[in-house]
């Protein structure tokens, strides 16, 4: 079984090959849809706590994303609000779920829907929704891939909000497949130092790692032991 890091690298590499070093949200949607062999993929990007831009891989996903925007309910709304994946693997069995949405999705030919929150702890940037034509749960491998897509897109969106130097995204993304609590502790510290969101703080840490040519975990470690500050005091 591939490790999380293998999977992460494979997806970041595939995304880079298709969309270049600075993928657009729409480009990430269609890449995710193709590589997950989905019926369609929709991307909700939150702006200041309210639904902002929406993106979709095709007309089907676009229609269902628009419908959720209009209704104010749906899987992507719940995934973002609750911060956990929302899964409905047989829409036809309960078309009344999310009144107005479930029935419309079934009519459009969608059998199942899987919505993943785009979040890194308290940094919540939106939701990635995978629409499948058939019903039933996602296979383990596909589900694992979908989670990684959500993670990659989260970090790409966070990076986009700050404006990273060209090329740093692919390097930074590939470097971040692992979990180290110090990276998140440092994000919290830098967030307090600069009075910015934890998402922006993480991106600043990553930019610093890229500029200095050292791993993100090393920069984070320096911040946590208080040898490095970002407010230049």
């Amino acid at each position, binding site marked *: *079984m*591939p*490790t*999380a*890091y293998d*999977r992460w690298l494979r997806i970041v590499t595939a995304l880079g090959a298709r969309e270049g070093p600075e993928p657009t949200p729409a480009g990430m949607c269609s890449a995710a849809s193709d590589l997950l062999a989905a019926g369609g993929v929709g991307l909700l990007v939150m702006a200041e706590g309210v639904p902002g831009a929406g993106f979709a891989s095709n007309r089907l996903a676009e229609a269902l994303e628009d419908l959720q925007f209009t209704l104010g309910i749906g899987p992507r709304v719940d995934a973002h609000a609750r*911060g*956990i*994946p*929302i*899964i409905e*693997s047989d829409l036809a069995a309960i078309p009344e779920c999310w009144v107005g949405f479930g029935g419309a999705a079934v009519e459009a030919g969608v059998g199942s829907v*899987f919505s993943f*929150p785009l*979040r*890194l*702890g*308290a*940094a*919540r940037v939106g939701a990635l929704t995978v629409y499948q034509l058939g019903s039933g*749960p*996602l296979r*383990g491998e596909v*589900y*694992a891939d979908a*989670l*990684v897509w959500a993670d990659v897109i989260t970090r790409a969106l966070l990076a986009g909000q700050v404006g990273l130097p060209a090329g740093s995204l692919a390097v930074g993304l590939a470097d971040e497949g*692992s*979990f*180290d*609590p110090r990276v*998140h*502790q*440092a*994000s*919290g*510290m*830098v*967030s*307090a*130092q600069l009075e910015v*969101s*934890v998402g922006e703080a993480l991106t600043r840490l990553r930019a610093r790692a890229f500029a200095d040519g050292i791993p993100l975990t090393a920069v984070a470690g320096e911040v*946590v032991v208080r040898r490095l500050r970002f407010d230049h005091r």
Partner: protein
Amino acid sequence: MPMASREELLADTFLQLADTLIEDFDVIELLTMLSGRCVELLEASATGILLADVHRTLHVVAASSEEANLLELFQIQNEEGPCLDAFRTGKPVVHGDLGAQSPWPRFGRQAMAAGLPSVHAFPLRVRDTVLGTLNLFMAQAGPLIEADVAVAQALTHAATIALLQERATTDANRLTAQLQGALNSRVTIEQAKGALAERANIGMDEAFRRLRAYARDRNAKLTDVAEAIAGRTLAAAEMDILIAPDSYVRFDHG
């Protein structure tokens, strides 16, 4: 109050667990409570609980101290150690003296350097699936006696029950979603620890202690408090209490 006997402490732990499970509880707080009780009940120097994600990669979800947190991380990053063996085999790993002989060269050196020669790991199992492990680090070399093994296994089962509480589904995707939620909560808590540590100029252990005490005092979920701090939505006056809790205690008592 006289010191509680081990039986009393054990009974109290399960009572607290039973009380928690009937409510809408915070899984990270519960696992942290259990890892703290392991320290008391088993005279361990440090304990940690690891949980596997959908990729079968282990993550630290609860630890009795920042030192334990980093020792766990060391095993994960070096891909060797008792917790990985317990996770892969689904069987308990009990190792009394790393100084005499260590099946894990890198981890063995790290644990010895931390003054923890005796290490043990117990799998969190549901039928054939291993969800993660509970790990003990002891300062005294020597085997784990049978009674201690029984207590460790009981606490491991308790942790497993806590994780499966919300399950009520056989849908593999949904079970994974819940575990993913617990891992994301952990990220939020680490971010909040960092923000509070920076504002109050304190260490990560003290920041975590204050977060838990604050959540308990207000009957709030640890994860919700962490989300408010890391998301910068906690009222300034509340943040001040977290930054200087002692000054508020003195004020309260006139």
